[in-house]
């Protein structure tokens, strides 16, 4: 197990390395000059050139890349071109808000999606199944900015139960989490439903029934856990989506977090911040997927890594 984790972390390093190269290339391929951003819209060309020189932007790309990696090996993510702050500081300021936002959004998806999945599986091909499945699809079709505003308007403004956006504790998290949960739950619902239907036809479910277990016990103890594997797999992938899409939640609910930082960095060609946030996101996704693989072992004892 430990050796497996070590091997996977090795793979993660390879992935991060790949991502760093692609990001670097993409960041440079966009015809947009960071020096211009720093100098402001009215700066002279000379100033811009000076800035370019100062940042090393006049060097060939591979030189810049090697320098970047060299600094990275010393855990130095560089300085933001735009904010004049170390990228690590910028990230550290925003990490927890974004992490809590993403985590609660993810939990909301699970909290909404999984019970609905169980419900639809138990009611498969009955009216309840159709209604819930269609509602879940309605959820997918809603856009986060729109649903977010609607929820804010009704539950933050008209009936002010929740704060009108902004970073904060539990009360601030509920509406964004709900928004993400509603738009994202359907995938879990569908996945869980189909894998539960699969498990429900397994022989060991019949065994459980033959022991005289009540239907709820059969489902809770014998079906769900077995049906969870594909859901967990998707959960890992979903974290990637979530971290990529958290900017929409942040913008809608006024959370000044990593998503916004990354998004702005892209339009401002703030390469150190782009690199830093992309690598961090990638690292988190890879770690999460590793975590998912470890969770497998606890869910399904048949899975062993060596």
């Amino acid at each position, binding site marked *: 197990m430990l050796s497996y984790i070590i091997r996977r972390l090795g793979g993660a390093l390879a992935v991060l390395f790949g991502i760093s190269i692609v990001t670097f290339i993409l960041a440079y391929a*966009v*015809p*947009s*000059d*960071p020096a*211009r*951003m*720093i*100098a*402001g*819209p*009215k*700066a*002279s*060309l000379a*100033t*811009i050139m*000076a*800035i370019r020189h*100062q940042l090393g932007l006049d060097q060939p790309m591979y030189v810049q890349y090697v320098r970047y990696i060299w600094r990275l090996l010393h855990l130095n993510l560089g*300085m933001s071109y*735009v*904010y*004049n*702050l170390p990228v690590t500081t*910028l990230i550290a*300021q*925003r990490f927890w*808000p974004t992490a809590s936002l993403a985590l609660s959004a993810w939990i909301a998806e699970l909290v909404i999606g999984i019970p609905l999945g169980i419900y639809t599986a138990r009611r498969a091909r009955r009216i309840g199944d159709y209604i819930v499945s269609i509602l879940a699809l309605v959820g997918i079709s809603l856009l986060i900015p729109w649903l977010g*505003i609607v929820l*804010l*308007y009704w539950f*933050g*403004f008209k009936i*002010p139960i929740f704060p*009108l*956006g*902004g*970073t904060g504790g539990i009360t601030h998290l509920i509406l964004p989490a709900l928004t993400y949960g509603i738009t994202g739950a359907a995938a879990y619902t569908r996945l869980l439903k189909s894998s539960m239907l699969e498990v429900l036809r397994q022989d060991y479910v019949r065994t459980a029934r033959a022991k005289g277990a009540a239907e709820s016990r059969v489902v809770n103890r014998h079906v769900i856990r077995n049906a969870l594997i594909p859901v967990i797999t998707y959960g890992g992938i979903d974290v990637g989506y979530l971290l990529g899409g958290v900017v929409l939640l*942040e*913008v*809608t*609910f*006024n959370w*000044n*977090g990593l998503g*916004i*930082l990354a998004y*702005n960095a*892209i*339009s*401002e*060609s703030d390469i150190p911040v782009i690199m830093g946030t992309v690598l961090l996101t990638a690292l988190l996704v890879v770690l999460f997927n590793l975590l998912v693989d470890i969770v497998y072992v606890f869910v399904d004892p048949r899975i062993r890594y060596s």
Partner: protein
Amino acid sequence: GCGQGGNTTGTQSAATGPVEGGSIVLDTDSNFKDFDPALAYFTTDTEVVPQVYEQLVTYQGASTNIVGDLAQSWDVSKDGKTYTFHLRKGVKFTNGDALTAQSFIDEFERVLGKTGVNSPGEGFIDPVVVGATAYHNLKNKTGQHISGVTAPDPYTLRIQLNQPQAYFLDVMAMPFFSAVDQKYINKVGNAAFDSTSMMGTGPFMASQINANGVVLKKNTGYWNKDKNGNALPYLDQVKIRINKNDQVDALNFEQGQTALLGWVINGIPSASIPTFRSNPKLKKMMQTFPENANYYLGMNVKTGPFRNHKLRLAMEYAINKTKLAQLSAGKDVPANQDIPPAIPGYVKNLPADVSYSYNPTKAKQLLAAAGYKPGQLTVTLTSQNSGLAPTWDQAIQYDLQQVGINCKINMLNNNTFYTEGMSGSLTLFIAGWYQDFPDPYDFLMLLASNQAPSNNMTWYSNPQVDAWLQQLNTSTNTKQRMTLSKEITVQFLKDAPWVPLCFSNAVYAIQPWVHGYYFSPALGDPLQHIWIDKGHSQTG
């Protein structure tokens, strides 16, 4: 209202005098980047920096009149080339250090790159100030000085110019040239001073700066008093929250959680304006300020189809500016020239041949005259992908299609747009210009050949205009300058490298219990004059 001129004052309470104390909350929709006065050139930053830092001179209230700030008075030599500022005595930085002429010299040196700062303010004093270029070009600046900036005594600052400049005091009012405490900067380090540890002589001091916003606290030792002798500022605290969703910001304001809506976010978001207009209570809180900014449709006169003058003229008639103004939720007004109406130099009565108006028939004729059959020409319209641009793009695209020009739309992010624009590779683009200071030169200089292609993204070049611009820059004679402005404007409209589109206005909403707010013409709106009714204190 950074970089946006204006003269309308905010609500004033006649009955009672200003109330001291209380705090307010404001929302902004963009991140703060840098609070170093030498670097702050970004809208949000320049709103905050003047609350903490002060300059030699500033504007009086909401007017465009220059008055002393940290300089109690100043003398200008006859030739207009030497400015001597007499500084206010007894002013202290909030850390207790005294303000001296050196505080300004330090900042000039910083702007010229002393500590590795790449200041956008550099272009405003180099090459105007004597020795600026030399100093800027020095590799090793330690122990060196700018020869034209001197301090005969601790409270006198002398600045020498290479040539007279009518708007030099306007330049000195820009936050780039604030007083800073070099000792403090050395202590906290340049980088920290840049971003997290601002410290000046102004009415407020930063008590908290983080990713969520800034909290400004009253500087109890502030030197300035109101006209009744009460200490400024009135407010104990101003909290500025970074809230990206301007629609939610509007809701926050409606809920009474913020004092102003529009401050730092360019007015009430256009999506919320109809809601505000239709609600009588909110409608009463709305106020409109001209922003002193223009939007124009630039055409590349150096390469591409728009080298053809007739085609450019056709464009002047093809665009329905009234509709563009309408699409801005009625905030903006159609433009017929470069300089906005509130800026000196605006030409009230343009000659008939250059007052273009929407006339598709004429546009079609001109297109034919330019040698294009309808549908034969395809152009690419480039714009930024923010704000109104997508709507305007499509309106313009439609207008062009109506006269027989096919138009593709290319939307770029802000930085890519300018990178491309400043390399002169855009054929047709929507751009805008916010004033730096209320002077015609600030707008007209965009047409100078030597600005191409960076600021003059159309590559417009007319030697006559260049000569006039040179004169406009150095002349100190107001009347002559106004004449020059008009001549340049008319000539430029004849050459038609642009289609002026709109002048923009900002629509704000102000809570009825907020008093003393005014929209500053060129700088950040000073918060020191704001006071609020008792019981409305906000902490966010």
